[in-house]
């Protein structure tokens, strides 16, 4: 199975004053379509930098990062903007809804930027997402009239309404209480199960990782553990089974 997302020896160095900080030190990983994976690590491990690179928000210092086979590392700002618009959905810790707009308008902004008039299929998807996220009756409210959990569900709807290739969620439950965190995580699971939405969840909380199907652990800018993509896991299991049978 070909990878939806692929990085090869990905490196990112920031310059803070005169000091160079290596945020990523050669990350190589593959994410397949339909995966729900968690990138976990302590603060400063490089997980947010990795998410920014996967989300075409910035360019790597070196290495390759490809979405659906297209290398985005060498793209210019306008090409990366196009990738974000068409192929990436973001969910942030602090929701980041536009405060002056209603929930409906916040979702519509993403549809407007995506371009093209909504067709029957995209409208059906929109209705289905609203049902799944249980925010259909909150659409006329502005962010300050919504609870944290509701705001995050609106942000999720905004992120998935254009059917992105990949949904990147950066500490999506970081600003929520336990109950709302659980609701949001179950909704991620539902989106992944029902729509086959590929989701990469960035977190420092090991409990959240248990909701996902794959754990990628990072420390000091490198991947220290990766369950591996499902097809490779399957291949490994097959090899170990056959090795076991032989022995």
């Amino acid at each position, binding site marked *: 199975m070909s990878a939806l997302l692929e990085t090869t020896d990905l490196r990112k160095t920031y310059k803070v004053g005169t000091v160079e900080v290596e945020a990523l030190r050669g990350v190589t990983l593959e994410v397949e379509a339909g995966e729900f994976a968690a990138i976990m690590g302590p603060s400063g491990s490089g997980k947010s930098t990795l998410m920014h690179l996967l989300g075409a928000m910035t360019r790597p210092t070196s290495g390759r990062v490809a979405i659906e086979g297209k290398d985005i590392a060498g793209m210019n700002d306008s090409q990366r903007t196009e990738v974000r618009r068409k192929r990436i959905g973001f969910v942030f810790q602090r929701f980041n809804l536009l405060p002056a707009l209603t929930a409906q308008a916040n979702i519509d902004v*993403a549809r407007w*930027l995506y371009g093209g008039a909504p067709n029957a299929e995209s409208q059906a998807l929109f209705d289905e997402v609203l049902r799944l996220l249980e925010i259909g009756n909150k659409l006329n409210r502005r962010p300050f009239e919504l609870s944290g959990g509701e705001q995050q569900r609106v942000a999720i709807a905004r992120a998935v309404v254009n059917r992105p290739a990949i949904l990147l969620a950066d500490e999506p439950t970081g600003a929520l209480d336990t109950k709302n965190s659980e609701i949001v995580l179950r909704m991620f699971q539902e989106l992944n199960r029902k729509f086959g939405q590929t989701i990469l969840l960035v977190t420092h909380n090991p409990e959240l990782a248990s909701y996902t199907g794959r754990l990628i652990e990072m420390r000091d800018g490198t991947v220290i553990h990766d369950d591996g993509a499902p097809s490779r896991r399957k291949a490994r299991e097959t090899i170990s089974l056959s090795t076991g049978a032989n022995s």
Partner: protein
Amino acid sequence: MRRQIILAGLKARPVRTAVSVLAVAIEVTLILVISGLASGMVGESARRIAGIGADIMLQPPHASVLLSFNSSVMPQKLGDKLLEIEGIKAVAPVLVQINGQGGLEQVWGLDPASFDTVSGGFHYQQGAAFSSPDEIVVDDWYASAKKVKIGDRVEILNEKLRIAGIIDHGKGARIVMGLRAAQERTGSIDKASIFFIKLNNPSDYPAVAARLKEVLPEYTVINLPEYESLMTPDHLPGLSEFLQVVSFIAVSIGVLVIFLSMYTSITERTREIGVLRSLGSSKGVIVGLILEESVALCAIGAVAGLGLSYLVGRGIIMAFPTLSVNFTPGWITTALVLAILSGVIGSLYPSYKAARQDPIEALAYE
């Protein structure tokens, strides 16, 4: 969607929106009221000159058509020579002076007999013509504005003069006195600023004008039926430049206020810009949204400015009934265009700055 984002942005910051709209409204009002006053005063003055009913106005060399700025004089006895020119029926000399007390009013010194021949005479609402050097006649607007009546004494050319009569407005100056009295008060004995000329036949103007030019080549001969069309701020040297300077100052104020408003706004909305960029908004969309918001602010301000100008114009006329304010379509269009232009110029740098923001840094902005 674009409109929804812009309107939401304007509504979300009501004080900023109100201050920006007010600034643009004041910009438009400043341009319209100053140009309206200039146009109104000049036009009204021209109508009063045209209202005399003469056919030709003769002025000495290098005289300004704007009589208030005119200090050139010519010999009064030139009138006798003019009467000898074929086609001229009557000649009325007038000495124009400016009264600085309580405003800038023209005071005309004229000879009632000759002036009546040229103009058909004044219509007196009250009283009669001046009969002594310390008497004047004023028009009804002046009497109403200054709240004076027959018998009152008003300070004119540094002397307290008695009002002998009140005439209908629309014919010459608002304050009129005897020619000799005016000449003596200003030291211009036997001098005149203007000759108003009545022709036997108004259609003979081209021929008579040619004869006048032949006899008095340096003098200014003006066809009075055309005078009103000449008396616009655009035709008056200095006035159009003055209006351009006022417009420039007004636009500069508008640009600075819009710049400050939009700059503050994009700083406050750094995070929102980061969100839009993360959603895939291009730099062009960000620039467009900020420019359009600014233009929307200016458009609202411009419309408010039209209303405010009308109110200020009414206020000026109520406070100073002898003044005239005329909002011409040309200046209304200019003021509206300049208001929108100040919005575009004022928001150029803020929109450029917003579009250049790094999405990661913008999202991390506190």
